[in-house]
């Protein structure tokens, strides 16, 4: 069945992030001046007081830690059949945090301790879109 959940639509500033995922690469931006990564994509550094446009795209490890999450027991539209599912924030080893779903694990609190190591799963949900999901790291 065709994927019928909300899909992202890239803007010029975020295109590389989504194109990278399509190639199964996690691409995020780094401020050359601060020497730090940031997320979500924008063509200037959002770290405090910086605003430098001296930024680059880097391919990162796709490894991180489970920072925080909820286990959603309700879901709207096509999500209803997925309940319960995990809406999480992961902290990448490179520093930034991003929202994701934690997959390939039974969604129970005891299976999802905070700071658990996680790794990216490239979910090719349509021909055009790949979402960055995460699973417990091997």
């Amino acid at each position, binding site marked *: 069945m065709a994927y019928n959940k909300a*899909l*992202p639509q890239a803007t010029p500033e975020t295109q590389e992030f989504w194109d990278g995922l399509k190639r199964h690469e996690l691409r995020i931006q780094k401020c050359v001046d601060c020497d730090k990564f940031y997320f979500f994509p924008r063509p200037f550094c959002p770290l405090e007081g910086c605003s430098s446009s001296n930024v680059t795209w880097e391919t990162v490890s796709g490894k991180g830690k489970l*920072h*925080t999450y909820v286990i*959603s027991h309700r879901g709207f539209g096509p999500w209803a059949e997925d309940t319960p599912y995990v*809406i999480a924030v992961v902290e990448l080893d490179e520093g930034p945090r991003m929202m994701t779903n934690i997959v390939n694990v039974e969604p129970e609190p005891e299976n999802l301790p905070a700071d658990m190591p996680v790794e990216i799963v490239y979910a090719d949900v349509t021909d055009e879109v790949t979402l960055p999901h995460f699973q417990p790291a091997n």
Partner: protein
Amino acid sequence: MPNSQDLSHKVAIVGASETAEVGNLPDRSMLQLHAEAALLALEDAGLTVDDVDGVATAGPTPAQLTEYLNIMPHWIDGTSVGGGSFLMHVGHAVAAIQAGYCNTVLVTHGESGRSQVGVGGRAPGPATIAGQFEAPYGVWGPPSMFSVPIVRHMHEYGTTEEQMAEIAVATRKWAELNPRAMMRDPITVDDVLNSRMIAWPLHLLNCCLVTDGGGALVLVGEDRANDFPKDPVWVLGRGETSAHTLISQMKDMTEWTAAVQTGKDAFEMAGMTHSDIQHAMFYDAFTHVPMYALEALGFVKPGEGGPYFAEGHTAPGGDFPMNTNGGGLSYTHTGMYGMFAIMESVTQLRGEAGERQLDDLHTSMVHAPAGMFSGTSTLILGNE
């Protein structure tokens, strides 16, 4: 440059009213709820629509409201950033009146949250920041987003589901004393923990209601503040800010950083400190939200919020009464509840709170999010 303290105690709330009823009101549209509350608040002040020369509202645009009321004010504020918008309007009105832009400001709220009569939709488009970086993961509204930081607070501080359930229990005790409250039956911690799972660690009874209703305020400057039927409720301090929209971009999942700032600004303007605050209306969209507020505003240390609520300080008979109308959890929650939080502070400071009235009350703090831990506003109100 003027100092914020110069604006403290210069503008007062002299008219205030909620809609005649709150709860389930399928016979009234969103705009009519604004108008009903507006007319009642003006009546409370002994004024009419013709006296209004400043208008602030959130939800509909100021133009929708002025068209509906058929007025053309000299000052408008359409700051519409969520539940705390009305607290911001009060702060903005203080400056506008002091600047001479207008003399009589009407702030209105109305929402058909439950019945959805005459309301517009607002889903984020797929190319927005939320549409790209949160919507694809199945978030479906505040219970699945505002709740995301909680596990981190539990992990860092040992905060428990039982402690958060105590917040719902304490708030329900206040609702038992409010005949207008939607939920008035006593509840226990077990009732909360056994209620339907919504988004762990949130159960149904950790979540606010969804209702219909409205409220409105009338503000004037100190030169006229004592010319009205009711004693003035003074605006002593205010703070506001705007940070992130995405819950995943909250900088510290254990701290409501925006509230740290707005609390300091409000205290500074009022020239007050924590021990001066006798009553609190801390917006309770979910049980953890007033817990984060209590810590961020500095009433307890980070991590002490859960135990503090469990000790009963905020419940009837406690030494720091909070959410005394029964809160968004048990009284009413239209969607942007901030107006009702202000309204309860005004009601208490006027001595009109009936069975739940607090004795010797002179100060109250109102605090609300505008968005989820992002935009934030704080007010300090007083009656002396």
